[in-house]
Structure formats: C-alpha cells, structure tokens
C-alpha cells in the first residue's frame, strides 16, 4: 500500500502530463471500440435489411445478385419470373405469405418497386419490426403511390403531391412516363433500410404505364393510351422480378427451397436471404478489416505516446528515483512504481474511453439507427470488446514497465547521488 500511495502522489505531482496521456489513450480506445461497434452495427444493419422473409425467389442467377436487386433494389435482373409461377408458389400450403416485386422504373434516382399491399402487411426489417406509415395509407387506386421516408424527405413530397415515374434507372436519355402521373397516398416511417429509398406502386400500375411498350421502348409515334381507357385493359402482370416468401413453418425452408429450385414451369431459384447476405458481407469484409487495422494503429500511436512520455519523464524523475534508492527502494520497487503508474494511466484512459463511447453511442445511437440503419448498442458489452480492452491495458502496462529497466540502470549509474 505504501508503494501505491507513493505512486499516486508521484503521479499527482505530474498530473498535467499524465492527464494528456490519459486523454490520448481514452480517445484511441473510444475510436478502437467505436469502429468495432460501428462495424458490428453495419453488419447487423445490413443483415436486418430484411427479416422474417424465409426465401427470396427469382429467375436463376447468382444468389448474391438476386438478393442485391430483390432486397436492396440495386442492379438489374437479367431475367424475370412468370406471374403464374408466383401464383403457384404463393398457393403452396407451406407458404404463409408472398410479396411480389417488380423493378425497372425509378423516380428521380429512387427505384420504383411494383408490389401488392401484402408488402406493407408482411415485410419486416431489423429484428422483426413491421412497416409503419408516418402519413397516409397503403396504395389502393391504380395510380396511387407510397413513398419511402428518404424519398419524401429528400424531395419534399407530401400527401396528395403528384409524381411521374421514369423508365429505367433514370440516366441520360431515359423516358418519362409523363402521361400517367401518380398521387402520393402514403409515406412510410423511417426504417434505415433500402425501403426508405424506394417508391412503391401496385403491380397493375407497372403494367398500366407500360401499355403499348415493346421491348423496353415507348409506343412509336408518340402514341399513348389515355389514363381513362387504361382500366379497360387486363392489367394482370405477365412477369415480375422476384418474390419474397414467408413460410408457415420455418423448419420447412429447405424443403420448399428444393421444391422451388426444381420448379417445373421455368428455371427458378430460391435463396435464404441470411446466407446470401453473409456471402455478400464477406466481399465487404476487406473494408471492415482495414477499418479495424486503422483503429488498432491509432491505439499503437496512443501507447507509443505514453511510452515516449514515460521515457522523457525518467530524466525528470532521476533524482526522485535516486532518493528512493538511497532510502532502501530496490529495482523491484522502482519497477512496481512505474508499473502502478502505467496501469493507472492506461486503466483510467481505457475507462474514460469506454465512458466516452457509451455516452457517444447513447447520444447518437437513435439518430444513427433511424438515419443510417445502424443499430448501435450503447450498453451492450461483448467478449471481443473486453479482449480488445484487455489488450490495450496490457500493451500500455508493458510500454510503461519496459522503461523501468532503463530507470534501474540510470539509478545504478548515478550511484546514490543523482547527477544534475
């Protein structure tokens, strides 16, 4: 205890320098753990873009590509699937619900998703949260549309506004479906998933705006079918892009998957979204590893700073250590003094860093979750984090104790009378 008190008094005597080192370590710990948490949150947010969906079904392609366009509305499907196949699969007794998805149009860069009202009923995200409307209701009329939260807030739309869709993803030379405007009837609450960036219309509307189109080109000669006649046509879709399927019993998932993969009508593929998302994440994994490497470097810099400060302070403490030697302190006492100080500094740096992290994630967590879909857990503590923290403290301890070797040699070289 005597040594502990000595170490504390000595540290207090140099509190300004030590406080700066504590801050440096705290910030690097906050960064290290923060990056780790953001990484986990990004991964969770990513995998929570869809939940409760047991299978994603589409024309045969790579599983990653299917999930990319069916869930993230990214890229384009090379092949569509037949509507009658959708009907057949949806009618399977094992299937609880099915959400058809038809892509291909956009509104000012935001993808348009043709679907049925089942989407608003069955689609789940995060840990099983259902979609909610911040205003309005699901579409019911032919030219009704529901907007994701980002679409509405970025473009400033409110209920009752009229919008038109663009054929394709909206690049140069895209053609507007200007003849058939839609009315905004609903705006979804923020989810932090691709839903926020999507414009939802009915499957029939997708058919209606493409009436008379051939091979992806508008009818020749500026010919267009007026809105009031459109309803007289059969607007049942011929094809859709993909479908999301929920099962009555999840245990049947592999059975149903095989059945769809061997579907007689046309070549189809069913993918477990979690498996495909994991594959996709591995592609992104390089980025997360380099992030972690950068933050580990920051910790190394913090600890190297501490080692430098300890070494620099040794000259300043030479007299103090010599006096202690003269009153009976041995090398082990000096090592203990420096070790206690290193533990104290790294320990309080780590504790401060964790406190900062918790405060930061508690403050920004809700905002990050709703705006970026990053589910940050303020108080959750993982084994990995404890290990990282233990590694930081151990490294700091080592960085503080190694100079003790030099301190002992200095004290010895000084004899009993410290040099000035």
């Amino acid at each position, binding site marked *: 205890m*005597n040594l502990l008190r*000595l170490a504390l*008094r*000595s540290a*207090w*005597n140099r509190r300004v320098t030590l406080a700066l080192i504590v801050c440096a370590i705290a910030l690097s710990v906050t960064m290290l753990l923060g990056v780790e948490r953001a990484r986990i949150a990004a991964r969770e947010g990513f995998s929570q873009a869809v939940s409760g969906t047991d299978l994603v079904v589409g024309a045969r392609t790579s599983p990653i590509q299917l999930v990319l366009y069916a869930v993230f509305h990214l890229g384009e499907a090379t092949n569509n699937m037949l509507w009658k196949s959708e009907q057949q699969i949806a009618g399977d007794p094992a299937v609880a619900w099915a959400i058809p998805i038809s892509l291909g149009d956009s509104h000012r860069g935001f993808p348009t998703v043709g679907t049925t009202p089942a989407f608003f009923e069955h689609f789940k995200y995060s840990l099983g949260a259902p979609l909610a409307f911040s205003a309005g209701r699901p579409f019911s009329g032919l030219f009704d549309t529901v907007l994701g939260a980002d679409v509405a807030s970025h473009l400033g739309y409110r209920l009752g506004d009229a919008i038109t869709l663009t054929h394709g993803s909206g690049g140069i030379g895209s053609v507007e479906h200007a003849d058939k405007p839609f009315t905004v009837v609903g705006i979804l609450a923020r989810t932090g998933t691709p839903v926020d960036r999507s414009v939802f219309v009915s499957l029939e509307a997708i058919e209606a705006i493409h009436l008379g189109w051939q091979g992806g080109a508008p009818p020749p000669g500026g010919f267009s079918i007026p809105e009031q006649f459109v309803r007289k046509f059969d607007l049942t879709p011929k094809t859709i892009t993909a479908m999301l399927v929920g099962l009555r019993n999840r245990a049947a998932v592999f059975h149903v998957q095989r059945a769809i993969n061997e579907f007689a009508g046309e070549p189809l593929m069913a993918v477990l979204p979690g498996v495909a998302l994991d594959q996709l994440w591995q592609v992104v994994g390089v980025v997360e590893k380099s992030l972690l490497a950068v933050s580990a470097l920051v910790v190394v810099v913090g600890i190297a700073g501490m080692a430098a400060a300890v070494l620099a302070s040794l000259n300043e403490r030479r*007299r*103090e250590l010599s*006096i*202690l*030697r*003269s*009153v*009976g*302190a*041995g*090398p*082990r*006492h000096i090592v203990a003094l420096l070790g206690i100080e290193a533990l104290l500094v790294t320990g309080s740096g780590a504790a401060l860093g964790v406190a900062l992290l918790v405060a930061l994630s508690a403050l920004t967590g809700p905002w990050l979750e709703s705006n970026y879909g990053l589910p940050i857990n303020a108080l959750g503590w993982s084994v990995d984090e404890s290990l990282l923290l233990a590694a930081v403290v151990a490294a700091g301890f080592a960085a503080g104790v190694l100079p003790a070797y030099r301190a002992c040699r200095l004290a*010895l070289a000084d*004899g*009993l*009378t*410290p040099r000035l």
Partner: protein
Amino acid sequence: MDPSPSPLLQAENVSFRWAPRLAPTVELDRFTIAAQERVFLYGPSGSGKSTLLGIFGGVLVPQQGHVRILGTDLGSLGASRRDAFRVDHIGFIFQQFNLIPYLSVVENVLLPCRFSRRRRERAMQAGGNLEAQALRLLAQLDLGRALHARNVTQLSVGQQQRVAAARALIGRPELIIADEPTSSLDAGRQEGFLELLLAECASSGAALLFVSHDRRLAAHFTRQVAMDEVSRAAPALGEAA
C-alpha cells in the same frame, strides 16, 4: 588507525571501474570507520568521492575487494538484500535536492521507515510513534512546526538539508554518509548545520562519514582523511587543485 577490534565499516583491496576498459575510479587497500567515529573525507571533485560512497552504500559493487559493514560483506548479499541492508544501517544526506517534492516534510523524513522494518521499529522505540519521532528530530534540528505544512520545495536550502538530516537519522542507523551536504549553504549556515548534525549523530550513536572539498570544516571531526590517501586512483591533492 583502527581504534576498535571490529570496525563499523571495513573496506579492503577495493577496486572499482565504471567500464572494463576504463582506469579504476577507486582503488584502495584498506579503509575503516569505527562505531560512532566522525570521519572527514576531503578531496577535489572528480577524485572518486561519490563513487566511493556508492560502493560503501552497496549501490555500486566493486570488481575486486570487500566492503564489510557491521561484519556483513556487502558483496555477498544479493541486490535486494543489499538494498534492504543499506536502508537498515545507513542514512544518506546529499549535496542538495534531497527531498521528494510531492511528499510533505514529515513524509520525507519517514521515507526510510517505509522500506526498513528495523528503522521503523527503532524509530517507534525512540519516539512512541513514527510521526512523534519525526517531529522530535525536526524540532532538534531547529525546524519548527510552522514549516511542516509547507511544500518542501518552498523551504530554503538550509531547511531542506536539515529535513534530509532528520531523514538520515530517523530509526538510528549506525552510519550516516553525508556527501557535501553543506556545499550549497553559505558559510555562516554551514557551521550551524554541521553542529546540529554532529550533535544528533552523537545523541543517536551513529558514526558519520562526511565528505567535502572544503577543509575549513575539518576541525569538527575526530579523523581527517584525504581522498588520495584512501584511493590510489585519486589524483594527488596538489595536482588537482
């Protein structure tokens, strides 16, 4: 030359060099200090005085020869036993900056008692409790209570040296080694400090090895030794001056 049959400190055939290739810094055939003796050791700076004190204190281990204190050969002790032995039996006073700045006056005085049970017990015997003994020593060294509350860095150099003397004396070690303790004091205060130190050494029964380059102080001592008499490695007084 050797007044008692078993001297307090006995050094024989000691040779010390800082590095194998360097010439010896200290080279002596025989040097002794008897119990309660007051020895004045003088020599110019660079004559190896501080090195010699490091050898007597057991911090520096000579490549040859033996140093015995109270019959114990310092070279035969391990490093940590030597550290313990040093604080048990020797008190040190340095030239200046003797005190640890972040400890109070009394805490500085009590430092040896933190590391030595023997000093702690002997201090308790003398004063009832440690703090009382520290206060008693400080009072005898003319450091009033009003000064105790001050930060040690605010004390004058003379006051600091007296605090250091109290620290060296607490727990009645058998030997006090003082390395130029008066050289940072002005002439008037040197005498006063020396008288207080000698009186306290006498009352606690300690021998005193007092090192200085200033021979005017020598009259107070029972024996005067020149560094070049002790160590063959030291330059003769005439040529160094």
